């Protein structure tokens, strides 16, 4: 017998969206000098949600000037006072958490269950964690009398709009920097609501500035001569361009880029738990996760058993209205991203992999991609080497632990990896040999503000989270230790 689900939509009445949005510069919402706007849409319905200001180079300059002005007093404010501002922000985020979750789901397409239970609670937790660092910077690890870097330019992606904002802004502010942040083109709304929260927290004008726009706005920010650091999360391709752009300057740089994580299942793995971990690994947030477990490496002896458990589990995933509290997999963030996923999935067919697709019904409007698994994947296939950034899993097999490690490391990326096994010594040895910044053993896609996150190799450099994440926004105050 099958259970029917009644619709359980979250109410959107808690949010009021401005039809026309301004930039947040110097503590005020102001019109863009460019006078230009672009639209942001709900990817689940293709409904236009609002118009967003397109910040030009002149607008970016105004934001950097505001941040530079604010830096003088913000960096001199005692750590304990800075801490209290950041604690205020954390509290207001908790108070307005439902509003933030609904807005995030409307603009991004991710299920309300995720924005409500994962994204927004982690956002508040990040501000809480870093608030407490603001008056303890001498313990950050850069030596005595640590100093903030100055004005930080931050560019974030659309997959976790508010969470990536928190990862960037919370440590920067705690360390005494001021920021100019550019949200992703398709997901500006939660950043603008965050700007309102900064006003409610009475954060001094100019400490946080939000400039909305697309690639050109980001370029203007990265290339602005008066910023001291660039922090970027996004694709490896854009990360490379930014690293080239800051060459020859004194700007510091941290990059959190793409990934093609191996999720390795050994024959002694607890299979039921593993299946849940595989699902979390690749279908969480529609697979729009840089650390997604997109390459499943299964020990050959259990391949068939595992797959026979996995497929029926995937059939149970509910794909559809992100505002429905029962939805597991939401909408693909944009038409452009959906096209990319189709293109790569098609390459899987062409190169000889075998496609399995969930039989779940998909809504008629909006951008959707049903949970998909490719088996018979070989290492040279594009779906085994390129980041798909969608709900598509590529399954490969191995016989020995050494082969698993070689295959897992056979990628220019190195962001994350998973290990499933009952044997402690094997987990520790494999964890040590994987060239990736985050290793989940018998779990996957867990995040915490105290836990450093970031990549090896072409997945970028620098860490976000924990003490190590704070260091990225400080420099030694005296000659070397």
């Amino acid at each position: 017998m099958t259970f029917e689900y009644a619709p359980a939509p979250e109410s959107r009445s808690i949010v009021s969206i401005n039809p026309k949005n301004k930039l947040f510069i110097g503590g005020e919402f102001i019109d863009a000098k460019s006078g230009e706007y672009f639209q942001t849409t709900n990817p689940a319905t293709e409904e236009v949600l609002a118009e967003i200001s397109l910040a030009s180079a002149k607008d970016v300059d105004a934001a950097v000037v505001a941040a530079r002005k604010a830096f003088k007093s913000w960096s001199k404010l005692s750590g304990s006072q800075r801490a209290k501002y950041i604690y205020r922000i954390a509290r207001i985020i908790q108070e307005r958490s439902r509003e933030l979750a609904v807005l995030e789901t409307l603009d991004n397409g991710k299920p309300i269950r995720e924005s409500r239970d994962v994204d927004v609670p982690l956002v508040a937790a990040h501000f809480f964690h870093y608030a407490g660092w603001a008056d303890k910077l001498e313990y950050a690890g850069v030596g005595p009398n640590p100093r903030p870097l100055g004005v930080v330019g931050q560019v974030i992606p659309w997959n976790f709009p508010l969470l990536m904002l928190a990862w960037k802004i919370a440590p920067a502010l705690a360390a005494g920097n001021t920021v100019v942040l550019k949200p992703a083109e398709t997901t500006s709304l939660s950043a603008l609501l965050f700007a309102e929260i900064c006003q409610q927290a009475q954060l001094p004008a100019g400490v946080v500035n939000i400039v909305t726009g697309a690639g050109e706005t980001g370029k203007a920010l990265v290339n602005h001569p008066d910023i001291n650091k660039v922090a970027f999360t996004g694709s490896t391709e854009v990360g490379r361009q930014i690293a080239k752009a800051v060459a020859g300057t004194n700007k510091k740089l941290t990059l959190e880029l793409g990934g093609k994580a191996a999720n390795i299942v050994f024959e002694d793995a607890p299979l039921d738990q593993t299946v849940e971990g595989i699902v979390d690994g690749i279908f969480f947030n529609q697979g729009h996760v840089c650390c997604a477990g997109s390459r499943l490496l299964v020990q050959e002896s259990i391949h068939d058993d595992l797959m026979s458990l996995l497929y029926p589990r995937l059939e149970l995933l509910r794909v559809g209205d992100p505002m429905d509290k029962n939805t597991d997999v939401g909408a693909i963030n944009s038409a452009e991203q959906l096209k990319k996923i189709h293109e790569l999935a098609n390459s899987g067919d062409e190169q000889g992999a075998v496609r399995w697709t969930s039989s779940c019904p998909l809504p008629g409007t909006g951008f959707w991609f049903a949970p998909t698994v490719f088996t018979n994947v070989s290492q040279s296939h594009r779906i085994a080497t390129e980041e798909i950034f969608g709900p598509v899993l590529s399954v490969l097999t191995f016989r020995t632990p050494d082969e698993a490690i070689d295959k897992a490391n056979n990628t220019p990326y190195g962001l994350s990896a998973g290990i499933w096994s009952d044997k402690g010594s094997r987990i520790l040895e494999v964890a040590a040999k994987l060239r990736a910044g985050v290793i989940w053993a018998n779990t996957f896609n867990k995040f915490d503000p105290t836990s450093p996150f970031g990549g090896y190799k072409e997945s970028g450099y620098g860490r976000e989270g924990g003490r190590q994440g704070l260091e990225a926004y400080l420099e030694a105050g005296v000659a070397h230790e």
Partner: protein
Amino acid sequence: MNDSLDVKRTAKLYINGAFPRSESGRTFVVNDQNNKFLANVSKASRKDARDAVVAARSAFNKWSDASAYNRGQVIYRIAEILQGRSPQFIAELESAGVKKAAPHVLEAIDKIVWYAGFSDKISMVVGSANPVAGKFFNFSIPEPTGVVAVCVSNEPSLVNLVSQISAAIVSGNTVVVVVPENSSLIAVSLAEVLATSDVPAGVVNILTGDSAELAPWLASHLDVNAMDLSGISDKNLKTELEASAATNLKRILRTFPDGLSAIKTYVEIKTVWHPQGF
């Protein structure tokens, strides 16, 4: 009187624990302060640079897998051997125009000892056990980045040379060092120190030659993970090298921050999660 003729040393490259001449057959002349001939030093080529990267990559697994205690002792032994050879280094530094060469050599020895002692402390100082909100054991540890290309300055300095090398190898990285003309003879002598201490073949590789010729090949090399550009004085070249190094997102040092910050440049923080429960 002693009428026995000096047996001069042939100044060669140091790759994979051996002392090859440049495959290009090229050399450059190094004279002393009075313009008196000292040596024909091997002038490394692109091919030599690539060989050096292969050697460094091959040595990486074993060196990074060695215990921190072992690495510390190996690096400490470099200081032991250098101490015994200090008269030679003092003479060479003096002939290269370095004032106060004797205290300079002692400082270089102290630097090596300082870095050696950090090998088994990096994890403690840089790593952490993280109190995540949930039933997980979560820890972060530093691991070496991989192969590091080090550009040393044309101002001869044994202190900088050993510090730049030690900061990279102490955590388990392997290095390819590019040494321009004026610094070349002390680097050749250091290679001989390394070869007679317990540093495994390939962990340190030394290329004497023209930085402007060699560094671009290393900056664009996809099997090099990090680069110390502090020794490059030409600003345009330095910018070009940094831009080229972005191709595979190499970790970059623009200036050399002697000490823990330098060590940190060449480590990656790895965070491991595991659930807790019965």
